[in-house]
Protein backbone atom coordinates (compact mmCIF):
# COMPACT_ATOMS: atom_id res chain seq x y z
CA UNK A 1 0.00 0.00 0.00
CA UNK A 2 2.37 2.63 1.26
CA UNK A 3 5.16 1.06 -0.77
CA UNK A 4 3.07 1.71 -3.86
CA UNK A 5 3.16 5.46 -3.33
CA UNK A 6 6.87 5.29 -2.89
CA UNK A 7 7.33 3.39 -6.10
CA UNK A 8 5.25 5.79 -8.19
CA UNK A 9 7.19 8.70 -6.84
CA UNK A 10 10.47 7.04 -7.60
CA UNK A 11 9.37 6.50 -11.16
CA UNK A 12 8.31 10.11 -11.55
CA UNK A 13 11.62 11.34 -10.25
CA UNK A 14 13.39 9.25 -12.85
CA UNK A 15 11.25 10.73 -15.63
CA UNK A 16 11.94 14.26 -14.48
CA UNK A 17 15.63 13.52 -14.34
CA UNK A 18 15.56 12.20 -17.90
CA UNK A 19 13.76 15.33 -19.08
CA UNK A 20 16.30 17.42 -17.26
CA UNK A 21 19.09 15.77 -19.18
CA UNK A 22 17.40 16.72 -22.43
CA UNK A 23 16.74 20.33 -21.49
CA UNK A 24 20.27 20.59 -20.20
CA UNK A 25 21.62 19.34 -23.54
CA UNK A 26 19.45 21.83 -25.45
CA UNK A 27 20.68 24.59 -23.21
CA UNK A 28 24.31 23.77 -23.89
CA UNK A 29 23.76 23.49 -27.63
CA UNK A 30 21.98 26.84 -27.71
CA UNK A 31 24.74 28.44 -25.68
CA UNK A 32 27.37 27.30 -28.15
CA UNK A 33 25.24 28.49 -31.07
CA UNK A 34 24.87 31.96 -29.59
CA UNK A 35 28.60 32.53 -29.78
CA UNK A 36 28.71 31.51 -33.39
CA UNK A 37 25.68 33.60 -34.27
CA UNK A 38 27.22 36.57 -32.51
CA UNK A 39 30.40 36.21 -34.52
CA UNK A 40 28.40 36.15 -37.70
CA UNK A 41 26.62 39.34 -36.76
CA UNK A 42 29.97 40.96 -36.07
CA UNK A 43 31.36 39.76 -39.40
CA UNK A 44 28.35 41.14 -41.21
CA UNK A 45 28.57 44.58 -39.64
CA UNK A 46 31.04 46.23 -42.05
CA UNK A 47 28.97 45.17 -45.04
CA UNK A 48 25.75 46.30 -43.52
CA UNK A 49 27.16 49.68 -42.53
CA UNK A 50 28.78 50.17 -45.90
CA UNK A 51 25.53 49.34 -47.63
CA UNK A 52 23.55 51.73 -45.48
CA UNK A 53 26.08 54.45 -46.08
CA UNK A 54 26.14 54.07 -49.83
CA UNK A 55 22.37 53.91 -50.10
CA UNK A 56 21.98 56.93 -47.91
CA UNK A 57 24.44 58.87 -50.00
CA UNK A 58 22.81 57.95 -53.27
CA UNK A 59 19.26 58.49 -52.08
CA UNK A 60 20.12 61.90 -50.66
CA UNK A 61 21.77 63.06 -53.81
CA UNK A 62 19.07 61.88 -56.13
CA UNK A 63 16.04 64.10 -56.04
CA UNK A 64 13.95 61.87 -58.25
CA UNK A 65 13.95 59.17 -55.61
CA UNK A 66 10.87 60.46 -53.80
CA UNK A 67 8.91 57.24 -54.00
CA UNK A 68 11.92 55.16 -52.96
CA UNK A 69 12.71 56.95 -49.73
CA UNK A 70 10.63 57.98 -46.75
CA UNK A 71 7.34 56.79 -45.35
CA UNK A 72 4.32 56.72 -47.67
CA UNK A 73 1.40 58.82 -46.48
CA UNK A 74 -1.38 56.30 -46.69
CA UNK A 75 -0.13 52.95 -47.95
CA UNK A 76 -3.00 50.93 -49.43
CA UNK A 77 -1.13 47.71 -49.96
CA UNK A 78 1.28 46.65 -47.30
CA UNK A 79 3.68 43.76 -47.28
CA UNK A 80 4.47 42.36 -43.87
CA UNK A 81 7.51 40.16 -43.50
CA UNK A 82 8.07 38.30 -40.27
CA UNK A 83 10.89 36.16 -39.05
CA UNK A 84 10.37 33.40 -36.49
CA UNK A 85 12.07 30.09 -35.82
CA UNK A 86 11.53 26.64 -37.26
CA UNK A 87 11.23 25.04 -33.86
CA UNK A 88 9.65 25.71 -30.52
CA UNK A 89 11.20 25.20 -27.10
CA UNK A 90 12.41 28.75 -27.17
CA UNK A 91 10.17 30.40 -24.64
CA UNK A 92 8.25 33.43 -25.86
CA UNK A 93 10.53 33.96 -28.86
CA UNK A 94 8.09 32.92 -31.58
CA UNK A 95 4.91 34.08 -29.99
CA UNK A 96 6.12 37.60 -29.29
CA UNK A 97 7.02 38.12 -32.94
CA UNK A 98 3.69 36.70 -34.04
CA UNK A 99 1.85 38.89 -31.58
CA UNK A 100 3.66 42.01 -32.78
CA UNK A 101 2.90 41.10 -36.38
CA UNK A 102 -0.74 40.51 -35.49
CA UNK A 103 -0.92 43.97 -33.94
CA UNK A 104 0.70 45.57 -36.96
CA UNK A 105 -1.67 43.82 -39.32
CA UNK A 106 -4.69 44.87 -37.28
CA UNK A 107 -3.47 48.44 -37.36
CA UNK A 108 -3.16 48.41 -41.15
CA UNK A 109 -6.49 46.64 -41.55
CA UNK A 110 -8.18 49.30 -39.46
CA UNK A 111 -7.08 51.85 -42.04
CA UNK A 112 -8.53 49.66 -44.74
CA UNK A 113 -5.21 48.63 -46.18
CA UNK A 114 -4.64 45.34 -47.90
CA UNK A 115 -2.07 43.02 -46.36
CA UNK A 116 0.31 40.57 -47.95
CA UNK A 117 2.15 38.24 -45.65
CA UNK A 118 5.63 36.87 -46.12
CA UNK A 119 6.93 34.58 -43.44
CA UNK A 120 10.24 33.02 -42.54
CA UNK A 121 10.23 30.07 -40.17
CA UNK A 122 8.03 27.01 -39.90
CA UNK A 123 6.37 28.25 -36.74
CA UNK A 124 4.68 31.02 -38.69
CA UNK A 125 3.27 28.60 -41.25
CA UNK A 126 1.40 26.53 -38.70
CA UNK A 127 0.28 29.64 -36.84
CA UNK A 128 -1.33 31.26 -39.85
CA UNK A 129 -2.69 28.05 -41.28
CA UNK A 130 -4.48 27.38 -38.02
CA UNK A 131 -6.06 30.81 -38.26
CA UNK A 132 -6.95 30.39 -41.92
CA UNK A 133 -4.88 33.39 -42.94
CA UNK A 134 -3.44 33.62 -46.44
CA UNK A 135 0.30 33.76 -46.67
CA UNK A 136 1.80 35.06 -49.89
CA UNK A 137 5.13 33.32 -49.54
CA UNK A 138 6.66 31.35 -46.73
CA UNK A 139 10.22 30.25 -46.25
CA UNK A 140 11.63 27.78 -43.80
CA UNK A 141 14.83 26.04 -42.88
CA UNK A 142 16.80 29.23 -42.91
CA UNK A 143 16.25 30.44 -39.39
CA UNK A 144 18.92 28.31 -37.77
CA UNK A 145 21.93 29.27 -39.83
CA UNK A 146 20.92 31.82 -42.42
CA UNK A 147 23.09 32.29 -45.47
CA UNK A 148 23.19 35.26 -47.78
CA UNK A 149 21.50 33.12 -50.41
CA UNK A 150 18.57 32.71 -48.05
CA UNK A 151 18.26 36.45 -47.70
CA UNK A 152 18.30 36.79 -51.45
CA UNK A 153 15.56 34.23 -51.79
CA UNK A 154 13.34 36.23 -49.46
CA UNK A 155 14.27 39.56 -50.99
CA UNK A 156 13.49 38.60 -54.59
CA UNK A 157 9.70 38.40 -54.42
CA UNK A 158 9.58 41.42 -52.15
CA UNK A 159 11.56 43.57 -54.49
CA UNK A 160 9.64 42.50 -57.56
CA UNK A 161 6.32 43.24 -55.83
CA UNK A 162 7.58 46.65 -54.82
CA UNK A 163 9.10 47.40 -58.18
CA UNK A 164 5.86 46.61 -59.97
CA UNK A 165 3.94 48.81 -57.57
CA UNK A 166 2.00 45.92 -56.13
CA UNK A 167 3.01 47.02 -52.67
CA UNK A 168 3.36 50.57 -51.33
CA UNK A 169 5.11 49.66 -48.14
CA UNK A 170 7.04 46.67 -46.86
CA UNK A 171 7.63 46.21 -43.18
CA UNK A 172 9.63 43.64 -41.30
CA UNK A 173 8.76 42.23 -37.91
CA UNK A 174 11.66 40.42 -36.34
CA UNK A 175 13.68 40.03 -33.20
CA UNK A 176 16.65 42.32 -32.91
CA UNK A 177 19.68 41.08 -31.08
CA UNK A 178 21.09 43.73 -28.82
CA UNK A 179 23.20 41.70 -26.45
CA UNK A 180 23.14 38.25 -24.92
CA UNK A 181 20.76 39.53 -22.28
CA UNK A 182 18.66 41.80 -24.40
CA UNK A 183 16.63 41.05 -27.49
CA UNK A 184 13.48 42.77 -28.55
CA UNK A 185 10.89 42.54 -31.26
CA UNK A 186 10.94 45.50 -33.59
CA UNK A 187 9.09 46.67 -36.66
CA UNK A 188 11.43 47.92 -39.30
CA UNK A 189 10.60 49.55 -42.60
CA UNK A 190 12.27 47.79 -45.52
CA UNK A 191 10.83 49.56 -48.55
CA UNK A 192 10.65 52.38 -49.37
CA UNK A 193 13.99 53.02 -47.74
CA UNK A 194 13.46 54.56 -44.33
CA UNK A 195 14.25 58.25 -44.33
CA UNK A 196 17.62 58.51 -42.59
CA UNK A 197 16.78 61.92 -41.13
CA UNK A 198 13.73 60.58 -39.39
CA UNK A 199 15.06 57.22 -38.40
CA UNK A 200 15.24 57.51 -34.65
CA UNK A 201 16.45 54.02 -33.95
CA UNK A 202 19.93 54.41 -35.36
CA UNK A 203 22.51 52.18 -33.82
CA UNK A 204 25.21 53.38 -31.54
CA UNK A 205 28.63 53.87 -33.09
CA UNK A 206 27.18 55.19 -36.30
CA UNK A 207 26.90 58.90 -35.72
CA UNK A 208 26.44 60.28 -39.21
CA UNK A 209 29.59 58.47 -40.17
CA UNK A 210 31.18 59.22 -43.49
CA UNK A 211 29.07 62.22 -44.27
CA UNK A 212 31.02 64.72 -46.20
CA UNK A 213 27.73 66.49 -46.47
CA UNK A 214 27.35 68.97 -49.27
CA UNK A 215 30.48 67.67 -50.95
CA UNK A 216 30.22 66.91 -54.62
CA UNK A 217 29.83 63.27 -55.47
CA UNK A 218 30.00 61.65 -58.86
CA UNK A 219 27.77 58.81 -59.89
CA UNK A 220 28.60 56.14 -62.37
CA UNK A 221 26.17 55.59 -64.01
CA UNK A 222 23.77 58.35 -62.93
CA UNK A 223 22.26 58.36 -59.46
CA UNK A 224 18.85 57.10 -60.49
CA UNK A 225 20.17 54.00 -62.24
CA UNK A 226 22.57 53.26 -59.43
CA UNK A 227 19.77 53.48 -56.94
CA UNK A 228 17.78 51.02 -58.98
CA UNK A 229 20.68 48.58 -58.87
CA UNK A 230 21.41 49.35 -55.30
CA UNK A 231 17.99 48.96 -53.73
CA UNK A 232 17.52 45.22 -54.21
CA UNK A 233 21.04 44.68 -52.87
CA UNK A 234 20.32 46.91 -49.90
CA UNK A 235 17.13 44.97 -49.25
CA UNK A 236 19.08 41.71 -49.28
CA UNK A 237 21.61 43.15 -46.91
CA UNK A 238 18.96 44.34 -44.46
CA UNK A 239 17.18 41.01 -44.59
CA UNK A 240 20.41 39.15 -44.08
CA UNK A 241 21.27 41.17 -41.01
CA UNK A 242 17.76 40.65 -39.71
CA UNK A 243 18.03 36.90 -40.26
CA UNK A 244 21.35 36.78 -38.45
CA UNK A 245 20.02 38.76 -35.53
CA UNK A 246 16.86 36.69 -35.38
CA UNK A 247 18.87 33.50 -35.33
CA UNK A 248 21.09 34.75 -32.52
CA UNK A 249 18.00 35.88 -30.61
CA UNK A 250 16.36 32.52 -31.08
CA UNK A 251 19.37 30.71 -29.69
CA UNK A 252 19.50 33.11 -26.76
CA UNK A 253 15.79 32.66 -26.09
CA UNK A 254 16.15 28.90 -26.30
CA UNK A 255 19.07 28.89 -23.94
CA UNK A 256 17.10 30.91 -21.40
CA UNK A 257 14.00 28.78 -21.74
CA UNK A 258 15.98 25.58 -21.40
CA UNK A 259 17.96 26.88 -18.44
CA UNK A 260 14.67 27.69 -16.74
CA UNK A 261 13.34 24.24 -17.59
CA UNK A 262 16.45 22.63 -16.14
CA UNK A 263 16.12 24.64 -12.94
CA UNK A 264 12.50 23.71 -12.76
CA UNK A 265 13.33 20.04 -13.15
CA UNK A 266 15.84 20.33 -10.31
CA UNK A 267 13.20 21.88 -8.12
CA UNK A 268 10.70 19.21 -9.02
CA UNK A 269 13.15 16.44 -8.22
CA UNK A 270 13.82 18.03 -4.86
CA UNK A 271 10.15 18.25 -3.82
CA UNK A 272 9.36 14.82 -5.16
CA UNK A 273 12.28 13.32 -3.29
CA UNK A 274 11.09 14.98 -0.12
CA UNK A 275 7.57 13.63 -0.57
CA UNK A 276 8.94 10.23 -1.34
CA UNK A 277 11.14 10.21 1.76
CA UNK A 278 8.20 11.23 3.87
CA UNK A 279 6.08 8.45 2.41
CA UNK A 280 8.82 5.95 3.12
CA UNK A 281 9.30 7.25 6.65
CA UNK A 282 5.57 7.01 7.18
CA UNK A 283 5.46 3.41 6.10
CA UNK A 284 8.43 2.56 8.31
CA UNK A 285 6.82 4.27 11.29
CA UNK A 286 3.59 2.44 10.67
CA UNK A 287 5.43 -0.84 10.45
CA UNK A 288 7.26 -0.23 13.72
CA UNK A 289 4.02 0.76 15.38
CA UNK A 290 2.47 -2.42 14.15
CA UNK A 291 5.35 -4.53 15.43
CA UNK A 292 5.46 -2.77 18.76
CA UNK A 293 1.71 -2.99 19.05
CA UNK A 294 1.79 -6.68 18.15
CA UNK A 295 4.59 -7.43 20.66
CA UNK A 296 2.74 -5.53 23.33
CA UNK A 297 -0.41 -7.49 22.62
CA UNK A 298 1.50 -10.77 22.77
CA UNK A 299 3.15 -9.87 26.06
CA UNK A 300 -0.04 -8.80 27.72
CA UNK A 301 -1.71 -11.98 26.46
CA UNK A 302 1.11 -14.04 28.00
CA UNK A 303 1.05 -12.13 31.28
CA UNK A 304 -2.67 -12.57 31.65
Amino acid at each position, binding site marked *: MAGGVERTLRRRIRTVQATKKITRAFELIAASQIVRAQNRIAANRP*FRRGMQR*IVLKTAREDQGAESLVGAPEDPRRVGVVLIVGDRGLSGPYNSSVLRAAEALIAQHRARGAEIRLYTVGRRAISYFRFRGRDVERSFSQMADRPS*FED*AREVADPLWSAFEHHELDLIQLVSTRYHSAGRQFVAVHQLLPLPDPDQEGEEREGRPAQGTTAGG*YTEFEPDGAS*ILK*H*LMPRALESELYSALLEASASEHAARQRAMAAATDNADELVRTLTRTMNRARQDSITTEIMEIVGGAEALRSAKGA
Partner: protein
Amino acid sequence: MADGFDLQVVTPDRLLVDTSAQALVLRTTEGDMTVLDGHTSLVAALVPWVVRVDPVDGEPVRLAVHGGFLQVDTGPQEDAEPPGSLATRVTLLSSIAELAEEIDVDRARRAKQDAEERVGQGRTAPGGEGAEVEESEARAAADLARAELRLAAAEAQS
Protein backbone atom coordinates in the same frame (compact mmCIF):
# COMPACT_ATOMS: atom_id res chain seq x y z
CA MET B 1 51.82 56.45 -44.06
CA ALA B 2 52.05 58.70 -47.04
CA ASP B 3 50.28 58.35 -50.34
CA GLY B 4 47.79 55.82 -49.19
CA PHE B 5 44.06 55.75 -48.75
CA ASP B 6 41.93 53.54 -46.54
CA LEU B 7 40.44 50.70 -48.49
CA GLN B 8 37.95 48.12 -47.39
CA VAL B 9 36.60 45.31 -49.52
CA VAL B 10 33.56 43.90 -47.81
CA THR B 11 31.29 40.91 -48.36
CA PRO B 12 28.25 40.03 -46.26
CA ASP B 13 30.20 37.56 -44.16
CA ARG B 14 33.66 38.94 -44.15
CA LEU B 15 35.96 41.91 -44.39
CA LEU B 16 38.16 40.68 -47.25
CA VAL B 17 40.60 43.55 -47.45
CA ASP B 18 41.26 46.25 -44.92
CA THR B 19 44.40 48.08 -45.80
CA SER B 20 46.08 51.29 -46.75
CA ALA B 21 46.27 51.20 -50.53
CA GLN B 22 48.05 53.08 -53.26
CA ALA B 23 45.72 52.17 -56.05
CA LEU B 24 42.58 50.23 -56.76
CA VAL B 25 41.91 49.08 -60.30
CA LEU B 26 38.43 47.96 -61.26
CA ARG B 27 35.70 48.14 -63.85
CA THR B 28 32.44 49.98 -63.39
CA THR B 29 29.40 49.75 -65.63
CA GLU B 30 30.89 52.72 -67.49
CA GLY B 31 34.37 51.33 -67.99
CA ASP B 32 37.75 50.69 -66.39
CA MET B 33 39.05 53.02 -63.74
CA THR B 34 41.78 53.38 -61.17
CA VAL B 35 41.18 54.95 -57.80
CA LEU B 36 44.10 56.85 -56.29
CA ASP B 37 44.41 58.88 -53.13
CA GLY B 38 42.41 62.08 -53.40
CA HIS B 39 39.96 60.72 -55.96
CA THR B 40 36.78 62.72 -56.02
CA SER B 41 33.84 61.33 -54.07
CA LEU B 42 32.11 58.73 -56.14
CA VAL B 43 29.45 56.08 -56.07
CA ALA B 44 29.66 53.50 -58.83
CA ALA B 45 28.14 50.19 -59.83
CA LEU B 46 30.66 47.47 -60.66
CA VAL B 47 30.51 44.72 -63.22
CA PRO B 48 32.00 41.30 -62.48
CA TRP B 49 35.71 41.72 -62.96
CA VAL B 50 39.12 40.97 -61.54
CA VAL B 51 39.90 43.82 -59.18
CA ARG B 52 43.47 44.69 -58.28
CA VAL B 53 44.53 46.29 -55.04
CA ASP B 54 48.01 47.82 -54.72
CA PRO B 55 48.70 48.14 -51.02
CA VAL B 56 51.21 50.66 -49.72
CA ASP B 57 53.25 47.76 -48.36
CA GLY B 58 53.43 44.46 -50.10
CA GLU B 59 52.44 42.77 -53.27
CA PRO B 60 49.35 43.57 -55.34
CA VAL B 61 46.30 41.58 -54.33
CA ARG B 62 43.74 40.40 -56.84
CA LEU B 63 40.13 39.59 -56.18
CA ALA B 64 37.32 38.09 -58.19
CA VAL B 65 34.48 40.52 -57.61
CA HIS B 66 31.14 39.29 -58.92
CA GLY B 67 29.49 42.67 -59.20
CA GLY B 68 28.94 45.19 -56.46
CA PHE B 69 29.33 48.81 -55.59
CA LEU B 70 32.10 51.25 -54.94
CA GLN B 71 32.01 54.24 -52.68
CA VAL B 72 34.81 56.76 -52.64
CA ASP B 73 34.55 59.35 -49.94
CA THR B 74 37.05 62.16 -50.03
CA GLY B 75 36.76 64.93 -47.53
CA PRO B 76 37.40 65.86 -43.93
CA GLN B 77 37.11 62.68 -41.89
CA GLU B 78 36.54 62.47 -38.16
CA ASP B 79 39.70 60.53 -37.49
CA ALA B 80 41.90 62.46 -39.94
CA GLU B 81 45.53 63.24 -39.05
CA PRO B 82 46.05 66.17 -38.69
CA PRO B 83 42.43 67.03 -37.86
CA GLY B 84 40.55 68.69 -40.66
CA SER B 85 42.78 67.44 -43.43
CA LEU B 86 41.31 65.67 -46.40
CA ALA B 87 41.35 61.93 -46.50
CA THR B 88 40.08 59.38 -48.94
CA ARG B 89 38.12 56.42 -47.79
CA VAL B 90 37.14 53.73 -50.25
CA THR B 91 34.64 50.95 -49.67
CA LEU B 92 33.97 48.19 -52.15
CA LEU B 93 30.81 46.24 -51.39
CA SER B 94 30.12 42.95 -53.07
CA SER B 95 27.65 40.17 -52.35
CA ILE B 96 30.14 37.70 -53.76
CA ALA B 97 33.87 38.30 -53.91
CA GLU B 98 36.93 36.19 -53.28
CA LEU B 99 40.62 36.73 -52.83
CA ALA B 100 42.42 35.27 -55.80
CA GLU B 101 44.84 33.37 -53.59
CA GLU B 102 41.96 31.61 -51.87
CA ILE B 103 40.32 30.42 -55.05
CA ASP B 104 40.28 26.69 -55.54
CA VAL B 105 41.44 26.48 -59.15
CA ASP B 106 40.56 22.83 -59.63
CA ARG B 107 37.10 23.36 -58.34
CA ALA B 108 36.59 26.41 -60.51
CA ARG B 109 37.75 24.41 -63.52
CA ARG B 110 35.32 21.63 -62.79
CA ALA B 111 32.53 24.16 -62.29
CA LYS B 112 33.40 25.74 -65.60
CA GLN B 113 33.29 22.41 -67.40
CA ASP B 114 30.04 21.51 -65.80
CA ALA B 115 28.47 24.86 -66.70
CA GLU B 116 29.73 24.64 -70.27
CA GLU B 117 27.99 21.35 -70.69
CA ARG B 118 24.75 22.74 -69.38
CA VAL B 119 24.76 25.88 -71.51
CA GLY B 120 22.73 25.31 -74.64
CA GLN B 121 21.63 21.93 -73.45
CA GLY B 122 18.13 23.09 -72.55
CA ARG B 123 17.36 24.46 -75.99
CA THR B 124 18.44 21.40 -77.93
CA ALA B 125 16.51 19.04 -75.68
CA PRO B 126 13.02 18.09 -76.84
CA GLY B 127 10.40 20.62 -75.76
CA GLY B 128 13.20 23.04 -74.98
CA GLU B 129 11.24 26.24 -74.49
CA GLY B 130 9.42 28.04 -71.73
CA ALA B 131 10.33 29.81 -68.55
CA GLU B 132 11.90 26.83 -66.86
CA VAL B 133 14.39 26.29 -69.64
CA GLU B 134 15.09 29.99 -69.75
CA GLU B 135 15.89 29.92 -66.09
CA SER B 136 18.18 26.91 -66.10
CA GLU B 137 19.86 28.37 -69.16
CA ALA B 138 20.42 31.67 -67.41
CA ARG B 139 21.69 29.90 -64.34
CA ALA B 140 24.17 27.87 -66.36
CA ALA B 141 25.40 31.02 -68.10
CA ALA B 142 25.83 32.78 -64.75
CA ASP B 143 27.69 29.78 -63.30
CA LEU B 144 29.95 29.75 -66.31
CA ALA B 145 30.69 33.47 -66.04
CA ARG B 146 31.48 33.09 -62.34
CA ALA B 147 33.80 30.16 -62.88
CA GLU B 148 35.59 32.00 -65.67
CA LEU B 149 36.06 35.08 -63.51
CA ARG B 150 37.49 32.97 -60.72
CA LEU B 151 39.95 31.33 -63.05
CA ALA B 152 40.96 34.68 -64.51
CA ALA B 153 41.57 36.10 -61.05
CA ALA B 154 43.60 33.08 -59.95
CA GLU B 155 45.65 33.22 -63.12
CA ALA B 156 46.32 36.95 -62.82
CA GLN B 157 47.55 36.47 -59.29
CA SER B 158 50.04 33.73 -60.05
